[in-house]
């Protein structure tokens, strides 16, 4: 009886332009590069995948369902650079088989640094989703699935969400399976959906890896693995980046054909079905309480936040950024506040990671900088300018 719950993360950062200590203007973002990448990924991934899923949804007449979390910064970019993507998401929203999730509008790490800012950004995102797609999100996912007990308590106290998502990390589950619904420790109503990282990563990371013993991954093989969960769980949560389709896994790996045939194969087994996160939450009761005192995420093998805050440059940059909060908000200047928030996009800190710098791997993907050092220098120069704008604003006021 396992339900398959697909959720896709849809996000593109706002890349900064090359900004030296000698620059004095307030143009921080590289519009050309952002537009170029937005259109490129739209053509390789967002448009073909949206059309494919739209086809599948129509073909199965309500039996195939998915969920998306689209960041606010990407919604803004779609509107500016690639409006046709917006219309395909709109068409998906109208099928009634697609659920939109809530997150921080700026894909930020604000939960770790400012609870006020964190809640403001969630509200801003919820409003945007309502405005564009006519849905009020009931499920929350934090940036990079960063999670702990405190986050669950905070989200429950907001009163607008039924469930929260995070990584089904081994060290929080122990012997337990991610294929059940859980309750966060300290919560009475909120439910917890856990990513089945093994099956998710089979698609997201291993699909085209020829050294993987299971290569090539076919739809019927994957559906067999799903059916194997029968009797051992209620739901298989397949959470992944949307860019898996056509961007991380190129079209010539066969990823689109795999996805086209997967629903047929999964639904061949009469006990299987597809559910949106909200449906999953309504159908199943928590099997147990999960205690996560320390912060986890879905990143790397460590499943922690060291990819964003692992070295001195990263923690310095983010501390300096949030230290400005009061001064920024005091200006009440929309441009200054928006720029400050756009600097909170977690990718800026990810680019500064030195952890796997030597090996050159997934961290290199989409990274516009030659080195983590370059990215830190650029970010700090911009932050310096933003700081001086605040100061000027305060003086002139």
């Amino acid at each position: 009886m396992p339900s398959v719950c697909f959720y896709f993360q849809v996000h593109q950062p706002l890349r900064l332009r090359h900004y030296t200590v000698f620059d004095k203007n307030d143009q921080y973002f590289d519009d050309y590069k952002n537009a170029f990448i937005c259109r490129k990924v739209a053509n390789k991934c967002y448009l073909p995948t949206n059309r494919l899923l739209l086809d599948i949804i129509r073909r199965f007449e309500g039996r195939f369902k998915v969920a998306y979390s689209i960041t606010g910064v990407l919604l803004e970019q779609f509107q500016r650079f690639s409006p046709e993507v917006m219309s395909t998401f709109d068409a998906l929203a109208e099928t009634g088989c697609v659920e939109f999730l809530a997150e921080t509008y700026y894909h930020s790490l604000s939960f770790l640094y400012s609870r006020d800012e964190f809640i403001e950004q969630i509200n801003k995102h919820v409003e945007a989703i309502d405005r564009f797609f006519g849905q009020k999100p009931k499920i929350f996912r934090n940036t990079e699935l960063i999670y702990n007990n405190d986050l669950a308590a905070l989200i429950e106290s907001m009163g607008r969400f039924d469930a929260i998502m995070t990584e089904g990390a081994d060290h929080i589950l122990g012997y337990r399976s991610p294929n059940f619904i859980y309750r966060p420790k300290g919560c009475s109503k909120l439910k917890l959906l856990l990513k089945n990282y093994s099956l998710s990563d089979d698609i997201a990371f291993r699909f085209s890896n020829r050294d993987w013993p299971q290569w090539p991954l076919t739809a019927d093989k994957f559906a067999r693995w799903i059916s194997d969960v029968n009797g051992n769980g209620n739901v298989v949560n397949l959470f992944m980046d949307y860019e898996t389709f056509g961007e991380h896994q190129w079209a010539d790996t066969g990823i689109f054909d795999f996805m086209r045939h997967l629903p047929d194969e999964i639904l061949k087994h009469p006990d299987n079905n597809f559910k949106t996160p909200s449906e999953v939450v309504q159908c199943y009761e928590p099997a147990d309480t999960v205690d996560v005192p320390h912060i986890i995420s879905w990143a790397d093998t460590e499943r922690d936040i060291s990819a964003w805050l692992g070295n001195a440059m990263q923690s310095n940059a983010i501390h300096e950024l949030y230290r400005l909060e009061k001064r920024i908000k005091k200006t009440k200047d929309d441009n200054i506040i928006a720029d400050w928030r756009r600097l909170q996009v977690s990718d800026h800190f990810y680019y500064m990671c030195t952890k796997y710098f030597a090996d050159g791997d997934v961290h290199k993907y989409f990274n516009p900088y030659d080195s983590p050092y370059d990215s830190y220098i650029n970010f700090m120069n911009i932050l310096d300018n933003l700081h001086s704008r605040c100061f000027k604003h305060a003086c002139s006021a």
Partner: protein
Amino acid sequence: MKIFMLGWEFPPFISGGLGTACYGLTKALDQLGISVTFVLPKIVDSEYATHVKLLTPGSQVSAASFKFGELKNVKFHAIDSPLQPYSTPDVYQQRIEENLRRKQQIRGGFVSSASQLFGGMHYSGDMYAEVCRYAAVAAGLARDEQFDIVHAHDWMTYPAGIAVAQMSGKPLIVHIHSTEFDRSGEHVHQMIYDIEREGMEHADKVIAVSHYTRSIIISRYGISGDKVEVVHNGVDLNDHWPLAETGINKDEKIVLFLGRITMQKGPEYFLRAAKKVLEVMDNVKFVMVGSGDLMYRAVEMAAELGIGHKVLFTGFLHGEDVRRIYRSADLYVMPSVSEPFGIAPLEALDNDVPVIISKQSGVSEVLRHALKVDFWDVDEIANKTVAVLKYPPLEMTLRSHGNFEVRKLRWKDSAAKCVKIYEQTMVAV
């Protein structure tokens, strides 16, 4: 396996990276149990080589053998000669004249100038003659030696390498630490280019110190890529105790340039960047360590830019002084126009100094925890310099990761690669 090695310089007779590289390589070969006979032209009088007197050269053309205590398998032959690496024929001529003048004083002889001695020959003719003389002496030495491979470092020893290889029938390996294009840009000295090219053509294998240099060898010298192997240099790690206080006032940040002050090393870009940095920061001093044909030009330029009071010239420094200057520095900048490898940034990192290096360098192939710039991009050099001085976490991260990374660059590995190349050539012959 026995190697007959031909070099230019060796510590303590050292004026640049070549001597350091030869020392590191032979030391590591020694530890691998490879026996090396090292022939080098011993400089009669050098402003740099303060320990030269220890070797008491005999007659004008002599071969003095000596051994370094720490190197068991390495034997040295020094040929008395005024040849020096990084020299141009002009400088060479001056040195000969100086030496002659001194000898005249000592012996009360009556040769008045070098031009008289050489019958007014063209300068480059003189230098060429010297290279040939070195070759002849080296070939003479080789007659009494048993060895399997001839390994020659940089152009001056190539004629010697070719002569020894032909005489003994042993394979020749030429090791390129720099090319004429690195030293002189597009204004190459034809004679030196010809010697370099002939050496590479005669060699069974060419060792380049970087992929950067390898591509120059292939594109500029027309050598087949199959023959050219890359062996990156290593670094001798600093195992000394920390130095005592330097006495330098640390209210000011210190940005260091350390290298020959020649066109190749880009002193001009260093100064132009310094000017830009001083536009936004005040408490910085720029220290230029080294000497070279652009030294006076650099002093002039600093004055012209109006930053003379912020730029210090120390001249050439040795051992402890170099370490002391590293200890006081906050940043090392190497804006080389064309740098085959560049050992100095590794030494800087080993001394806990973060580095900015030119992308036009071999060392940028092996260093990740360094800031990299195009040598001509003065704005970017200044931008990164300011960043390092202004943001302590950047300096900290570069320093700790860089110091760790440098520990992976061992001469042992470079030597092991050389041994593999030796073995290949011995099989091929």
